[in-house]
């Protein structure tokens, strides 16, 4: 297999847009191609991620549409849907296309548009990522999924609502430093703790927002990447699945797919958690960040809450997590999120992250979780 690098990244402003998801992706993709300093004609394939276009935009067959609006209607395209891990899954497959020698330069990314529809409709469409027969029928929502996890974690380890609130405060503080972030405003612990319950014990400020946005990456084989000093190597990309049913999870306080994907990714890259300098992980809810920091091996099971409280995951802390502001403050356009996380890590490893730069970062990790914890992707990145 050939080594694969990311040679270009592009991310739209996250927030509310009056453009379609395909338009948002096209902007991000054009920026990524410019950033890569390759001719648009060099792109040989598009791996495209979107989740709710069929429901919210009455749009399927999005791959060719995205390629058409980009101005590259001739390239082969495939659309991916893996709930919130959609474009990270697309990335893994794009990486395999380049690694296998099928193509030398491939475009990957995704986009989502949901702020054009009412919140209860978006909540319904997102809930389609849980099982229709046994979970949607009882009214389980995504805040509900993570509320079940939060309560299990609180009861097993003594994790507190205040510790969860620290995650939100930290990610908002980071988001201030990211010009692309949806929210660029610091919040206090009190704001989080006094916000209304959405699904007990999770409150409004424990939840990431609905977001419109797009993100894109240009991947290239080593012989193309070697000439580009800003190239960042994809060291590993692994996916893991767990049962779709919340009632079948072996331990509600853990995300088994995170643990399995992480173990495989560290093995593929020849790295350990101690080698990682900067992390973008899936903080769709504050508890999700706490559980992920444990599952990725940065802290012992049950220690993630304390780590958040002590500031160990802040910029300047032991292991900076979500310098971009994370899903919580940067925003979560679900089809774009995985690619946007990778774009942030590439920016960090290039040393181009400005005021949110993790000094001297050489190795980065991204973690994206899909839906009811049934899909997780973990990838590792590095500089020579």
């Amino acid at each position, binding site marked *: 297999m050939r080594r694969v690098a990311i040679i270009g990244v592009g991310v739209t402003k996250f927030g509310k847009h009056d453009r379609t998801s395909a338009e948002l992706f096209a902007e991000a993709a054009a920026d990524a191609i410019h950033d890569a300093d390759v001719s648009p004609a060099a792109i040989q394939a598009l791996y495209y991620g979107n989740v709710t276009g069929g429901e919210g935009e009455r749009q399927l067959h999005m791959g060719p549409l995205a390629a058409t609006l980009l101005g590259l209607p001739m390239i082969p395209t495939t659309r991916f849907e893996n709930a919130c891990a959609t474009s990270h899954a697309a990335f893994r497959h794009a990486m395999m296309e380049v690694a296998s020698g099928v193509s030398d330069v491939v475009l990957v990314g995704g986009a989502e548009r949901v702020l054009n529809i*009412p*919140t*209860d*409709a978006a*909540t*319904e469409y997102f*809930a389609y990522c849980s099982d229709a*027969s*046994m*979970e*949607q*029928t*009882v*009214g*389980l*929502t995504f*805040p*509900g999924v993570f*509320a*079940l*996890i939060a*309560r*299990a974690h609180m*009861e097993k380890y003594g994790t507190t609502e205040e510790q969860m609130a620290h995650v939100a405060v930290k990610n908002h503080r980071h988001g201030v430093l990211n010009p692309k972030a949806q929210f660029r405003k610091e919040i206090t612990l009190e704001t989080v703790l006094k916000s*209304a*319950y*959405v*699904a*007990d*014990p*999770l409150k409004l400020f424990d939840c990431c927002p609905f977001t419109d946005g797009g993100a894109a990456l240009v991947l290239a084989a080593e012989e193309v990447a070697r000439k580009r000093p800003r190239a960042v190597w994809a060291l590993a990309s692994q996916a893991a699945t767990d*049962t779709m*049913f*919340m*009632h*079948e999870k072996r331990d*509600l306080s853990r995300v088994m797919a995170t643990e399995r994907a992480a173990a495989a990714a560290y093995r593929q890259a020849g790295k350990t958690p101690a080698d990682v300098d900067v992390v973008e992980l899936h903080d769709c809810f504050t508890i999700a960040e706490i559980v992920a920091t444990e599952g990725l091996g940065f802290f012992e099971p049950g220690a993630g809450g304390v780590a958040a409280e002590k500031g160990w995951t802040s910029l300047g802390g032991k292991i900076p997590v979500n310098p971009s502001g994370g899903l919580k403050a940067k925003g979560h356009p679900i089809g774009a999120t995985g690619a946007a996380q990778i774009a942030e890590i590439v920016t960090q490893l290039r040393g181009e992250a400005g005021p949110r730069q993790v000094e001297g970062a050489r190795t980065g990790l991204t973690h994206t979780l899909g839906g009811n914890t049934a899909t997780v992707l973990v990838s590792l990145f590095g500089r020579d």
Partner: protein
Amino acid sequence: MTENVLTLKQFFDEARAGRLTGIRCGKCGELSIPPKEFCPGCQERNWTAVPLVGKGAITSFTVIRVAPRGRGEEAPYAVAVVRLDEGVSLLGRIVDIPFDTLRSGLPVRFRPLVKGEETAVGFGPA
């Protein structure tokens, strides 16, 4: 080898009549809901449908206050993972139990929640 000892439709038809059904692996004895082809534990394809009593205890729960479209008038409502006495778990809507008395370990009993064509799993007081 046995196939289709229970379909999802049969599970819900039975549930609608107040009967909870699982499947038991003929090789390793694993109990499972919903029906599936291979046993996730031992990969055998040898299931038997088994009736479940419907009694269990809450493992984790939440009170959902922001509902999806179409369920707004039902909110707030509680949802819980319940571990049944037979050792298999099931997600259900909690009914007729005050929110402030919900706790892990609370005994509950299955009851079907029927709304038009839809049947959902519910749990009420034990």
